[in-house]
């Protein structure tokens, strides 16, 4: 399913259908940025009002223009290292209207001088859809056409999966599973838009919900292989979801951070602490929306994040769900 920032309509439709099926139409609302906000009213109003958030959007590319030769120039939608784009397949457009394309580079035989050592610039890359000229390219893919990575979902190894958009469909998946989580306080499940372009959906959703506690379910950077020094690994897939004490967008509430770790320990749910301050996510927006909230982030470690081939461990995905649920259970105990 495709869902670039601001173009989350396909994911939104699917999410709304599931939420409305479970909670009824009246419980599911949209905010002014296209985030889906599903509210479960409190059975016990004394309990903290909790907002769980996961973002629907993914990183990808946007068509800018076509060259005389019929190639598509593009820009990134979200943080993308141009070096992961060479020799990759993409889908230009959405759903059944989408057409295949490839991103190539000058062949190794014709590179000269420092070409081989110099990283490509995104403005020098292009998508080839086989168009014969500029007019055909523009008719198939006008400016603004969303482009997503065409990577098949591939399970491999010992419980791992390689796919595009694991950041943050893992969180969306678990948020949907948490629609019937046992919690008696008011529980809001926010499926946010536009996280990858600056946490924009969560700012609006956070303002509307004004929760006491915000928990972001994310996919985060893992950099554990290839003889990386321990200090730069961030986290390691297979060892459980990451609890963050801080990242580039938010400071975890110390009490909430401890509560989550304790819940994991008590329930025997694998988890780890994110060991590098990098990245940012919806928790930052929720923390400072309106009158403010206590926040914490629980993330599934993803290798090659923001690339066409991100990798995560399915056990970590399950444990993200279990630990979120165990955290709610602890909050209910007070």
């Amino acid at each position, binding site marked *: 399913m495709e869902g670039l920032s601001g173009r989350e309509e396909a994911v939104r439709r699917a999410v709304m259908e599931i939420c409305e099926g479970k909670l009824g139409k009246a419980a599911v609302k949209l905010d002014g940025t296209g985030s889906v906000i599903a509210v479960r009213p409190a059975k016990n109003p004394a309990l903290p009002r909790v907002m769980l958030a996961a973002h629907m959007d993914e990183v990808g590319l946007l068509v800018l223009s076509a*060259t005389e*030769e019929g*190639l598509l120039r593009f820009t990134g939608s979200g*943080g*993308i*290292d141009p*070096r*992961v784009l*060479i*020799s*990759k*397949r993409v889908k230009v457009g959405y759903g059944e209207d989408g*057409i*295949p*394309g*490839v991103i*190539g*580079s*000058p*062949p*190794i*035989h*014709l590179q*000269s001088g420092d070409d*081989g*050592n*110099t*990283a490509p610039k995104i403005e020098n890359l*292009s998508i*080839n*859809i*086989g168009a*014969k000229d500029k007019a*055909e390219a523009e008719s198939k893919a006008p400016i603004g056409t969303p482009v997503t990575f065409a*990577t098949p979902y591939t399970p*491999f*190894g*010992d419980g*791992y999966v*390689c796919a595009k958009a694991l950041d943050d469909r893992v969180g969306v998946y678990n948020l949907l599973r948490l629609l019937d989580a046992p919690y008696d306080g008011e529980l809001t499940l926010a499926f946010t838009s536009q996280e990858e372009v600056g946490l924009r959906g969560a700012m609006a959703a956070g303002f509307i919900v004004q929760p006491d506690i915000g928990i972001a379910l994310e996919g985060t*950077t893992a*950099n*554990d*292989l*290839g*003889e990386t020094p321990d200090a*730069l690994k*961030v986290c390691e897939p*297979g060892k459980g979801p990451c609890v963050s004490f801080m990242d580039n967008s938010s400071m975890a509430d110390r009490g909430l951070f401890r509560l989550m770790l304790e819940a994991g320990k008590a329930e025997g749910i694998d988890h780890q602490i994110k060991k*590098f301050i*990098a990245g940012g996510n919806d928790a930052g927006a929720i923390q400072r929306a309106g009158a403010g909230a206590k926040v914490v982030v629980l993330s599934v470690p993803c*290798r*090659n*994040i*923001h*690339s*066409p*081939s991100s*990798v995560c*461990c399915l056990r970590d995905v399950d444990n993200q769900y279990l630990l979120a649920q165990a955290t709610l259970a602890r909050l209910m105990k007070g």
Partner: protein
Amino acid sequence: MDILSFLRESTGRFGPVGHEQAIAQWLKERFAPLCDEVFIDAMSNVIAVQKPTAPSAGKPPVVMLCAHMDEIALMVTAILEDGSLRIRQVGGVDPAILPASTVTVHTDTGELFGVIGAKPPHLLSAEDRKHNVKFEDLYVDLGLSPEAAAQRVHVGDLVTMQGEPLELLNGKVASKTLDDRSCIAAMLLAAERLQKLSHTAQVVFCCSVQEEVGGYGARVAAYTAAPDIGFILDVTHAAYPGAKPDTTVPPDAPAATMGPFIQTKLMERLKNVAKENGIKMNVELAGRNTYTDTDDIQIARGGIPCVLVGVPLNYMHTTVELGDVNAVAETGRLAAAFAAAVEEGWDTDLWI
């Protein structure tokens, strides 16, 4: 033969340089119904023969068509303590194409899916962003524990890149290993046509090995086939924006190479054949080496006059090598027409 179907069936078949046994066996079966004789030689070259269908007074001329079946690949050079693998290239693989690519690791106990790691953008330094990756920075993630990885994988195991054929607009196709399976497709099309054409020449079809490291297989196949004429089919570079002048050809038609390694009068003959058959053919120049099997076939035995025809590709040696299906078909038609036009006395005044 349907070109796309053949590419779908063939481009994913294992054939790294020096490891062509399986693809050779498969291609032998493709040529067998089209030829009078087909065998695999000591190096795993496939050599298939169509006997003359038109009589000649003396020994019939022998024309050898040759396209290589080997592919560029990678090899495991180390199994790291974290269970990931270090790799190096077997043939000319540009490391720049590898981050976030998927691969198949071929082990003694079967195939493993792998992903080549890419440092996440959030952790890249300004210095990192300036440079392309190097092989020593790259690793293959198998999703396995270090113990399982060490048990399954050995140093020296081959790693092939993934990239099934993808149909684009206007008869374009992008795939791994169009170099040179697209020319094998053209050669099969030529064999089909020649079955129906009257030809004085004995036509030999060779699927050669070890081209990606330097024409090793073609030299030996040319010794065995002992042709009078070599007709080599290999891929060439299609035009792209920013390419240096005169390094590429238009993408939609076969391109013949001229230059010192190409026999001048055979080149003229090739141009005439193209013209007579209404085949659009572009011409490019190689000042010396062509970096194809031509360079070895030309000096096999006592010297063999050669021509070289290429299918233009964009993004050669990537997993999205992009070619034109019609250019493949026309290359096959040109090869058949050329071979069928070789008659007794073809070499009159060849060198003067």
